[in-house]
């Protein structure tokens, strides 16, 4: 069952489940696109995230009860979730090295893994974008292999360099710009994901697939990486 709750005087939030899963990502991406298309003249913004969708809407055109009813109706009358046949795949090169992976050595020790196995476990699977937020183009990727799961630092770091790849619990992500944060930093991508390139804003959407490609020092530098 879905649950619709009030979020604010001009927003509601729809819950599709309580557990994070790749299946739910497909569902939320599907309903997000569907609602966007069918209620484009009413919706101001739509925020998909893990298990929910928040929708803000024009209160001069429709009130809370009527909008909630329209949204529920659209969801309940479209129960065949269509997975896009062409899921966008984004490949991100990563240098896994303690020179740039501030927590890599500690992670290897904590997980009793050698570097080669660690890289294999992190880069040989596909991740789905479960949410985008925290800052623009920051994509929360799931799901990390159980052997790599690491909690956040108790005290966040003040400065995590742009491009840093982190792990927090069973999620992984790239920091698009230098920021504070508590994730375990295991590597760095040489590519610029900041809004200095405005196209980066639209790089990640909930439902997209991300792959990490290990690169060596020379490739990292050749791709413009800084360390």
């Amino acid at each position, binding site marked *: 069952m879905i649950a619709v*709750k*009030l*979020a*604010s*005087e*001009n*927003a509601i*939030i729809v819950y599709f489940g*309580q557990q*994070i899963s790749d299946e739910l990502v497909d569902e939320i991406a599907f309903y*997000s696109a569907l609602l*966007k298309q069918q209620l*484009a*003249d*009413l*919706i*101001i*913004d*739509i*925020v*998909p*995230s*893990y*298990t*929910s*969708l*928040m929708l*803000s809407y*024009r*209160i*001069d055109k429709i*009130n*809370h009860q009527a909008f909630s009813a329209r949204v529920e109706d659209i969801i309940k009358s479209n129960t065949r979730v269509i997975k896009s046949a062409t899921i966008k795949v984004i490949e991100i090169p990563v240098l896994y090295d303690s020179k740039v992976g501030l927590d890599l050595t500690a992670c290897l020790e904590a997980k009793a893994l050698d570097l080669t196995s660690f890289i294999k476990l992190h880069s040989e699977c596909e991740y789905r974008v479960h*949410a*985008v*937020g*925290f*800052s*623009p*183009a*920051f994509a*929360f990727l799931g799901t990390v292999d159980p052997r790599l799961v690491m909690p956040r630092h108790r005290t966040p770091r003040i400065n995590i360099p742009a491009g840093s790849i982190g792990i927090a619990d069973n999620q992984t992500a790239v920091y698009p*710009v230098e920021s504070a944060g508590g994730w375990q930093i295991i590597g760095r991508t040489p590519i610029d994901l*900041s*809004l200095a390139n*405005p196209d980066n*804003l*639209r790089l*990640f*959407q*909930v439902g997209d697939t991300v792959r990490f490609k290990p690169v060596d020092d020379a490739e990292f530098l050749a791709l413009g990486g800084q360390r």
Partner: protein
Amino acid sequence: MSFRILRSGFLLTIQDGGRFGLAHYGVSQSGVADEQAAYWANHLLGNHFNDAVIEITLGDFECIALDETDIVITGADLDFTLNDKSITMWQENHIVKGDKIRCATAKKGQGVRAYIAVKGGFKTPNLFNSRSVNLREHIGQPLQQDDVLTSTRSEPKPIKRSTPLFLRPNYSEPLILRFLASYQYADFTQTQINTFLNQSYLIQSTSDRTGYRLEGKAIADVASKMISEGIAYGSIEITTAGQPIILLKDRPTIGGYPKIGTVFSLDLAKLAQRQPGCEVIFKSMDLEVAQQLRQQFNAFFGIKQSTLNLN
């Protein structure tokens, strides 16, 4: 050209009605922290509500006019002067080349944010659907000394429009924040809700455009963090330590603290004018009343928000 900044004070930014249609890419709302004051400034000039204004934070500002134009100053009364003589706020003022506008540093009990609107709005770069600067997101830059702002020239007029006195807010009166029961409200126990309602909270000095942090008697046994979800303007997060954070214009799009309610948007405008150390209390409000009041406000200022079909 219209103005050169001579002193930028604590934080000086360009803001407009906000950034919409990109929240699914993690882009936050942004825009003027006090919608009431900022929209009055544009309204008096006959501007569009979304025209960009200067948001002055805690004063210590000075600029010089490079051309003839009309301006309106609203918001916090920070002892504004025009060429060292007192200037009337909440009213149109004609400015000529060489005029100096200045304000003092905010004193205790005064408001936090003042707005300067200019005829036709400030023509700073449009960044992802909006001119609003968001420092947390690295979108745009704060205004600095010697920055030059562009707007259109306007001739003197025989009339000056002003806001009636009874509609000008008093930022030193006690603030009751009306809120809607939303999100995880039903997951809070009656005891937890009573703690929240039956006390006054103090605004903390760590408050900013992203959120206002409050401190009071802690709400006991708050659930730890939950799955992150979309957070609306005014969401009241309760931290693991049991203290509220009210999320404002520069908030992230998603967050993982449980939320006990959502403050009514027009009360958030008043909150953004309260300095650290001020007290606030919460009072529940009906959704129908909130929607009606907000709609009247939108109709008065001609606010029409963009929808996804425009993006």
